[in-house]
C-alpha cells in the first residue's frame, strides 16, 4: 500500500490541516469506553485521523478507501461500550464532530442536525423552541446523534417514547462505496425497501450517517418524579408489573441493590447518600452493623426528606432479612393527568408494601449515576487499579425476570473475584443493566463468567444486549443468539452494501 499516495489524496480532499498522523493524535482514537481494552490495551492503531466537514468529503474519502482498499471507521463522541467504533484493522478514522449544525422547524415539528451534533445540544435547542427531544441518555453531554442512530440508542425516556429508531423522520447516509442517499423528512412513506432503516443499529458497518431529521414533541407542561422503596426485589417487581399493566410512565427505573453485601460500611459512605433517594435502602440492609446504624439515624432524622416517616419505617424493618429495591417513576404532561396517574401508581405501590418518598433534585442528578457507583467503589476502598467497572445490558421476557435475577446472583457467588454492584431495570420491565466490578488481568475468569452468563440469557429466551450493541464484545456470540441462517443474512446485507469490506471491517457482517 502506498502510504504517501493515500496521504496526498486525503490532503486533496480535506486539506493538510485536517489530517492527523502523530502517535499522540491517533492513540485516543483506538476505543471509547471499552473495559476489555482498558484491561488489556489493544495493539491496533488508526493510520490516519481525518476531520471531515462535508458529506461530499465523506463520499470522496470512501471512494479513495475503496481504491486503495483501506478501512474507514466513523467516530462520533467516543462513548461506545463495546468496541463498535474501534479501528481494529487500522486505516482511516473519520471524526464526525464537525457535522454539528442544528435547524429546528417549528411548523413541521422536527429538528434537523448533523451526525456529529452532541445530543445534549439538540435537547437544549429543542427546549429553547418549546419542544422536547424525547431521547435522553446518560452520555448525552458527549454522545452524538450519528452514534445514537448507528447503535439504535435507548434512553431514560424510552419507556414511553421508544428508542431512537421511532424518532427518525429522515436521514442522509454515505454508502461504503461513496454514493450519497437520503430519505425525506416525512412522517411516513411507503416506497418499498427502506435501506436507510437498515442503517439504524448498523454500528458503522453499512454507511456513514451525516445528517438526520428527528421528530420533536411539544414540551410537557410539567414533570414529576416519585420514589418507592420495597422490602424485597419481588415486591418491587410485582408492583412495577402492575403499574405497567395500567399505564406507561415516561421515566421508569427499578434498582435492586446487590452490592450491599460486599461493602465494608463506614459512616462516611452513608453520609454521602444523605441527600440521595437510595439512602434508606442501604440502612435497610442486613449487613449494616447496629452500632453504625445508631449513629446515622440521628443525622438522617434532620436531613432526609420526609425523614420521620423513613425513620419509623427503618426502625420497624431493619431486622427483616430481606433484599430490597427502589423504584423511580416519572411523569410528563399536564398537571391533572399526572395527578391521576400518580394516584394509580401510589395505590399499586402501597398494595405491595411500597413506601413513597421524594427527592426533588432527582431530575438534575439523573445523569450522574456514575457518581453514585464510584462513591460506592471509593467507599469500599477497592484498589481501583485492580478493579474495573463494566455495565452489561441484557434483556429477557417478563416471565423469566426472577429466574434471570437469581441466576446472576448464583453466578456472582461462584466467581468470587467478580462483584455485583446493582441490577437496574432501566426504562422497561425487561431491560436489565448489570453493574459489575471485574478483576484486572484475569481474562480467564472473565471468559468463564461471560460464557455462563450468556448461556443463561439465551436459555431464558433473552438477548445479550438491549442498548449497547454488538461491537467486538458480542460479535462471537451473535450466532448463538440468532442462528446460522440469520447470521448469513446479515453477512449478505453487509456484502451488498460494502462489497470491498471497507467500512468498519472485522465487525458486524464481517467478523469474527
Amino acid at each position: 500500500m502506498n502510504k504517501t499516495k493515500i496521504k496526498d489524496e486525503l490532503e486533496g480532499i480535506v486539506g493538510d490541516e485536517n489530517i492527523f498522523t502523530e502517535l499522540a493524535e491517533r492513540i485516543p482514537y483506538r476505543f471509547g469506553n471499552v473495559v476489555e481494552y482498558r484491561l488489556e490495551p489493544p495493539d491496533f492503531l488508526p493510520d490516519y485521523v481525518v476531520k471531515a466537514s462535508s458529506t461530499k468529503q465523506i463520499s470522496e474519502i470512501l471512494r479513495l478507501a475503496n481504491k486503495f482498499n483501506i478501512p474507514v471507521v466513523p467516530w462520533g463522541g467516543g462513548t461506545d461500550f463495546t468496541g463498535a467504533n474501534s479501528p481494529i484493522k487500522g486505516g482511516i478514522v473519520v471524526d464526525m464532530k464537525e457535522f454539528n449544525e442544528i435547524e429546528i422547524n417549528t411548523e413541521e415539528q422536527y429538528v434537523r442536525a448533523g451526525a456529529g451534533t452532541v445530543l445534549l445540544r439538540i435537547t437544549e435547542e429543542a427546549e429553547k423552541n418549546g419542544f422536547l427531544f424525547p431521547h435522553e441518555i446518560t452520555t448525552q453531554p458527549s454522545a452524538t446523534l450519528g452514534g445514537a442512530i448507528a447503535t439504535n440508542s435507548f434512553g431514560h425516556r424510552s419507556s414511553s417514547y421508544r428508542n431512537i429508531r421511532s424518532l427518525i423522520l429522515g436521514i442522509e447516509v454515505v454508502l461504503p462505496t461513496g454514493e450519497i442517499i437520503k430519505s425525506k423528512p416525512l412522517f411516513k412513506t411507503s416506497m418499498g425497501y427502506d435501506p436507510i432503516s437498515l442503517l439504524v443499529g448498523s454500528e458503522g458497518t453499512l454507511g456513514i450517517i451525516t445528517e438526520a431529521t428527528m421528530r420533536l414533541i411539544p414540551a410537557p407542561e410539567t414533570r414529576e418524579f416519585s420514589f418507592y422503596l420495597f422490602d424485597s426485589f419481588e415486591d418491587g417487581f410485582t408492583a412495577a408489573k402492575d403499574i405497567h399493566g395500567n399505564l406507561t410512565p415516561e421515566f421508569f427505573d427499578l434498582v435492586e441493590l446487590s452490592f450491599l453485601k460486599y461493602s465494608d460500611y463506614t459512616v462516611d459512605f452513608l453520609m454521602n447518600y444523605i441527600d440521595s433517594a437510595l439512602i434508606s435502602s442501604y440502612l435497610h440492609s442486613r449487613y449494616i452493623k447496629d452500632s453504625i446504624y445508631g449513629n446515622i439515624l440521628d443525622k438522617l432524622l434532620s436531613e432526609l426528606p420526609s425523614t420521620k416517616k423513613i425513620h419509623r419505617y427503618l426502625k420497624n424493618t431493619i431486622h427483616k432479612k430481606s433484599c430490597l429495591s427502589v423504584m423511580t417513576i416519572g411523569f410528563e404532561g399536564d398537571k391533572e393527568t399526572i395527578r391521576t396517574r400518580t394516584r394509580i401508581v401510589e395505590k399499586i405501590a402501597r398494595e405491595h408494601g411500597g413506601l413513597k418518598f421524594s427527592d426533588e433534585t432527582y431530575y438534575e442528578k439523573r445523569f450522574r449515576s456514575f457518581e453514585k457507583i464510584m462513591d460506592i467503589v471509593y467507599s469500599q476502598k477497592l484498589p481501583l487499579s485492580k478493579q474495573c467497572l463494566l455495565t452489561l445490558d441484557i434483556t429477557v421476557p417478563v416471565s423469566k425476570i426472577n429466574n434471570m435475577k437469581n441466576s446472576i446472583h448464583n453466578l456472582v457467588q461462584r466467581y468470587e473475584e467478580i462483584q455485583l454492584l446493582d441490577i437496574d431495570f432501566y426504562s422497561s420491565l425487561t431491560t436489565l443493566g448489570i453493574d459489575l466490578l471485574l478483576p484486572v488481568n484475569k481474562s480467564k475468569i472473565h471468559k468463564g463468567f461471560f460464557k455462563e452468563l450468556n448461556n443463561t440469557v439465551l436459555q431464558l429466551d433473552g438477548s445479550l444486549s438491549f442498548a449497547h450493541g454488538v461491537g467486538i464484545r458480542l460479535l462471537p456470540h451473535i450466532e448463538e443468539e440468532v442462528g446460522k441462517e440469520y447470521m448469513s443474512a446479515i453477512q449478505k446485507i453487509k456484502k451488498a452494501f460494502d462489497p470491498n469490506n471497507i467500512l468498519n471491517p472485522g465487525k458486524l457482517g464481517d467478523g469474527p
Partner: protein
Amino acid sequence: MEFDSPRAKLELINEALSGRVDPRDIIITLNRCTTCKRCVESCPFGIDVADIIQEFNQLVRKSEFERDKRNFIIKTRYPQRYIENLIAKGNPFGIDSKYETPSKNIDFIFFPGCIASYKDEKIVNKARTIFDKLDLSYDTYTGCCYLPLKSFGFSRNEIQEFFRPKFDYSNKMKVVTLCGGCYNSLKEDHNQNVIHITSFLLDYTNKLNLKNDKKVTYVDSCKLGRYNKEYKEPRELLSKIRELQMSEIENNREDAPCCGGGGTLQYYFPEISTEISHRLLDQKAPDTTLVTACSYCKYHLTQNSNEKVKHIIDLIFESMS
C-alpha cells in the same frame, strides 16, 4: 478532536506511565490545554486533569534533565530565552526586577506580577494611587511568581528556589496581587498570606466613594474562580460602584470560559490560544466593556484582539471621585 478531550489526555498519560509510549511523543499534544479546569467542573468523578498534566510535565522534565543536565533546555521544546530570563532576572522579559529592601511598619506587600509591572505599568500606578488615597503603606515587588515555569514542568521546590522576593521575614505579612495566576501561585506554591486586590479593596469601598455609569460585562478568571472559588468578591466590589450597569457572560462562575492564556498552550499552539480568546470576547454583551479581575487575562485578551478589556482596578480608578 478526540485528543483535545480530558479523557484522551488521561489515556495518553496512562500509556506513557505504563511504558508503552515514549513520553516525549505525547508531551506536546498533552499540552493542548489551558489548565483552566473547566473539565474538572463537568467531570462526575471530579478528576483534576489539569493537575495530573502538570505533574506529568514535571516527571518528563525531570527525566530529560537527568538524561542531559547541561543542554536540556536548549535541545528540547522549552522556550529557552524565556526560561533563562525568568531564572536570571526574575521575569520573562529580561529586565531587572525591582525588590526594595523591606520597610518597617508597612501594611502589606504589593505584588502586581510581571505582566502588570512590565507590560501594563499604568495599572500598577492606578493601584498605587488607590492605595495612596487610602493612606496605606506598602512595598512593591515587580517580579514573577514563577507560575509559567510550573507549566513547563518545573517542580514546586525548584520554583520556590528561583523565587526572588524571599518573603521569609514576613510570612504573616499580607501580599496583595493584581493577577489571578500570581494569587494562586503565591498561595499554593509559596505559602504566602496572599489576598487578591478585589477582596482587599472590599474593606475600603466606603472611603473610595465609587460611581460610574459604564456598561460592563464581567468575566471570571480561571485561577481566581475555579482554582480558588473567588466568585463572590469581584462581583461584590463591582456592585459597590454606583450606577454601574453590569452584565454577565452566559457561562459564568464555574462554567466561565478561559481567556486562552493558561498553561503552555500559547507557546505551542498560539492559534488555538487566540481562537479561545475570540470565543470569550464573542460572548460579551454588545456595547459593553469586558472587565476581568486578572491582569494576565487582560493582557492576553488585548494582545489577541482589538477589543478594549479592563482590569477591575482600571474601572475602580475611573470610578473614584
